């Protein structure tokens, strides 16, 4: 089980959280003009990296706030936890990966 450090409540067990998929997705602003194929790409296609993944979690049984997590999909190591709206940190450089 993961121990996820909630930016508000501190470290808690994974069962208190719900996964909220990939973070930092910018929706198209020209919604009327783009094609169905582009919409499909935007809505359904997600990164599936082997390594650092920038994702959102929600502290469902605690403070019920969303936040971002930079997690390694291979080792489950959590490099960074940061609030919504903040830019993704470049953890590859910091962790030397």
């Amino acid at each position, binding site marked *: 089980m993961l121990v996820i450090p909630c930016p508000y409540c501190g470290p808690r067990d994974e069962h208190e959280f719900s996964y909220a998929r990939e973070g930092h997705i910018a929706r198209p602003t020209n919604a009327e003009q783009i094609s169905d194929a582009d919409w499909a790409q935007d809505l359904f296609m997600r990164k599936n990296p082997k390594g650092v993944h920038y994702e959102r979690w929600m502290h469902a*049984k605690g*403070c019920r*706030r969303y936040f971002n997590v930079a997690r390694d999909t291979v080792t489950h190591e959590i490099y960074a936890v940061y609030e919504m709206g903040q830019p993704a940190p470049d953890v590859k450089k910091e962790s030397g990966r």
Partner: protein
Amino acid sequence: MVETYQRRTALAHLGLVGRAAAGKGGAGVVMSEAGHRTIINIRGNAQDPAFAAAVKSATGVDLPAKANTVAGTGARQILWLGPNEWWVTGADGEADALVEALRGAFTGQHATACDVSESRAVLSLKGPKTREVLARGVSLDLHPKVFGIGQCAQTGLSRCNVLLHQVGEGPHFEIYVLKSFSDYLWRWLEQIAGDFDLGIEA
């Protein structure tokens, strides 16, 4: 004929008064239902001095400074729920006046106060074995060095979402749980507490 509405607590059907009177009394863990309580959910910007002042003027209590802590004593307390969300508690029957006072104080601010008193039942557990009972269903570290008096935490207990609050020595914990889960949670706790010399108070 008009029947008078008989307001009952969430666990009134368990007959705790009778069981307590019958002398179901151990001292390892003493369980009771805390009865009706006013709970007001407030939200606002904690960094805004005007919001903090409004809460103080309406409730007489400062917002808790740290996450997962409780400010105030007795009936009037403020429990931290999130970075911009708290519960204000009060004695039974205070809800309407408290909401009115808070909404009045929040005039012109991006803040809200909402009466959620009827949503929760409050269970009380005290006695030297309380932490051992809770530890069977909570993944938090409840060691007194980590979780002490005046601290609260929302977490999962058994299968329920609860708010745990250590209110005093003993240790004495209060558990806020949704009313619809309270019957299940009481029975679960009673089963566990049976291993630890259970007593029941009304």
